[in-house]
């Protein structure tokens, strides 16, 4: 198998006396969707925040394309092409789509912001993802629907040639049609060569879109399998701790 784009080994993280991650391993491959599942409090969000550089890990190694890296700030993660789309959609509602997509990395020309270039790149990225639901890239995010916001957040993540995109519950707040749209978008994202990690509680979504499923249980990775080699019942068992995975982890 190829070298994983992201390889986490023995990741540890505690908050005071609480050990949230107790030596977690995880791999993500280019062009594949890896679903990260687990019950509330299993440590999914903590694992993701460490990768994003928002909340650095206490211990363990992070390898990026086989090279060990240290992620301490969002900028460091972003520089490597690791982007996170947060559950609570880290978008500024009072800013428009372009401003949100470029926030923190604006294009400038002669010291002023190059609005034309940013507008063009934003619409090209949206078109590249076959997004046709937004009317204008100058719309304020507050005027968008939940699905459109998710789309903008995903477009923001791939704007600067992301290698790894992590999606935290991208369909949690969406209706049926919008969920379908976003899942299609996730699939297209992976097909374009990005390594996608998706956190979800919805196993129907997971089985629809994921190539691999990794199950966290109380801060430990209890199973890591190809979707084709497992089924919903088993995964539920791993999540709740009522079943133990006997096979070899991917």
């Amino acid at each position, binding site marked *: 198998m190829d070298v994983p784009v992201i390889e986490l080994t023995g990741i540890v993280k505690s908050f005071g006396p609480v050990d949230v991650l107790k030596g977690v391993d995880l791999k993500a491959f280019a062009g594949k969707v890896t679903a990260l599942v687990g019950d509330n409090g299993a440590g999914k969000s903590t694992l993701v925040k460490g990768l994003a550089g928002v909340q650095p890990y206490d211990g363990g190694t992070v390898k990026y394309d086989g090279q060990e890296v240290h992620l301490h700030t969002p900028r460091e993660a972003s520089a490597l092409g690791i982007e996170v789309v947060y559950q609570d959609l880290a978008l*500024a*509602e009072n800013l428009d789509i372009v401003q949100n997509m470029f926030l923190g990395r604006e294009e400038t020309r002669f010291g002023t912001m190059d609005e034309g270039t940013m507008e063009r790149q934003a619409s090209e990225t949206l078109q590249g993802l076959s997004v046709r639901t937004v009317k204008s*890239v100058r719309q304020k995010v507050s005027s968008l629907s939940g699905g459109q916001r998710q789309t903008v957040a995903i477009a923001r993540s791939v704007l600067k040639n992301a290698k790894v995109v992590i999606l935290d519950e991208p369909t949690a707040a969406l209706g049926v049609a919008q969920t379908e749209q976003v899942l299609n978008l996730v699939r297209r994202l992976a097909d374009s060569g990005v390594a996608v990690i998706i956190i979800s509680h919805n196993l129907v979504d997971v089985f629809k879109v994921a190539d691999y499923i990794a199950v966290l249980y109380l801060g430990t990775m209890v199973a890591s399998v190809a979707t084709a080699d497992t089924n919903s019942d088993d995964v539920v068992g791993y999540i709740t701790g009522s079943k133990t995975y006997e096979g070899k982890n991917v």
Partner: protein
Amino acid sequence: MTDSHLAQSARSARLQQLTQLATNQSTILVGVMILLTIVFSSLEPKFLSALTANNILTDWGSVALIAVGQTFVIISGGIDLSVGATIGLSGVVSAWTMANVLGVDQTIKGGEASGALLIGTLVSVAVGVLVGLTNAFLINRFKIVPFIATLSTMGAALGFSVIISKGAPIGSASNFALISAIDPKVNPFSWAVIVVIIVVVIVGLFLHKSRFGLYTYAIGSNSFAARAAGINVERHLTKVYVLSGALAGLAGMYVYLRLGAGSPSSGTGRELDAIAAVVIGGASLMGGVGRMLGTVLGALILFTVQSGLIMIGVAPDWKKVVVAVLIAAAVAVQTLQSKNRRTA
């Protein structure tokens, strides 16, 4: 590369934004200004004079400076209650420095006076910066909400200014060379007001055209999003409170020029005028919303009402009532607008 369909519609949306802006808060405010002018001048013809305009603009100057700083603070999702007290403190420290360090007295003239004023201004702004840094330190380091953090620096600044001045104004109003900058030179504008206008324009462009301004909106809109985008939120807020403090320091010097003295109570209550101007100007205390033009017009309306009421012979206490109505009306308009937007 050819322009895509989306970029084209972006341009039309920007045009739409422009027209929306024209039918927006600022236009309403200009309308209110015209209406006030018509009402006051029909009741008292002398209202339409360079003298009245000069009075209004001179009053406007000090509050415009702190309101402009307050606009940044409020857009960032905070509030700065310390700016009024900072006017007093910076004026007092500056007057004390000029009197006791530079030896400025009644006899100072021409170039010497200009030099003293320049140093006085620098001292005044430095005091404001110090207050701003203290605010930022309390907010960032101890996570004290801005309301309480700036309430305590407000108290401390007021206390220090009384301690330093021993409760009495420092300096004397009688020296013309020292305070001539406030005289109407280009009627109805004085040099001091012209400086204020220049500062307001520069800071306004800074808010609407620079990355700094954009990040201020982003933080006020969703500070988590700003952080996730790699913006150093604490450092940015420090700059915002320092800017507000520095402008309050500048306002302290402006008030010194008006009074010819540094007085500890000279800025008391001004923070509320500034907040009123910002809110009338269309900003939201929730953060993320606001425009500099709105603030500037909001402050202008405040003092037009004040001068107008006095000129038509209404007791000055009514000003407070009118201002209260204006604030309530501004917030009501804002709420209606956002409701319309949601249903649109």
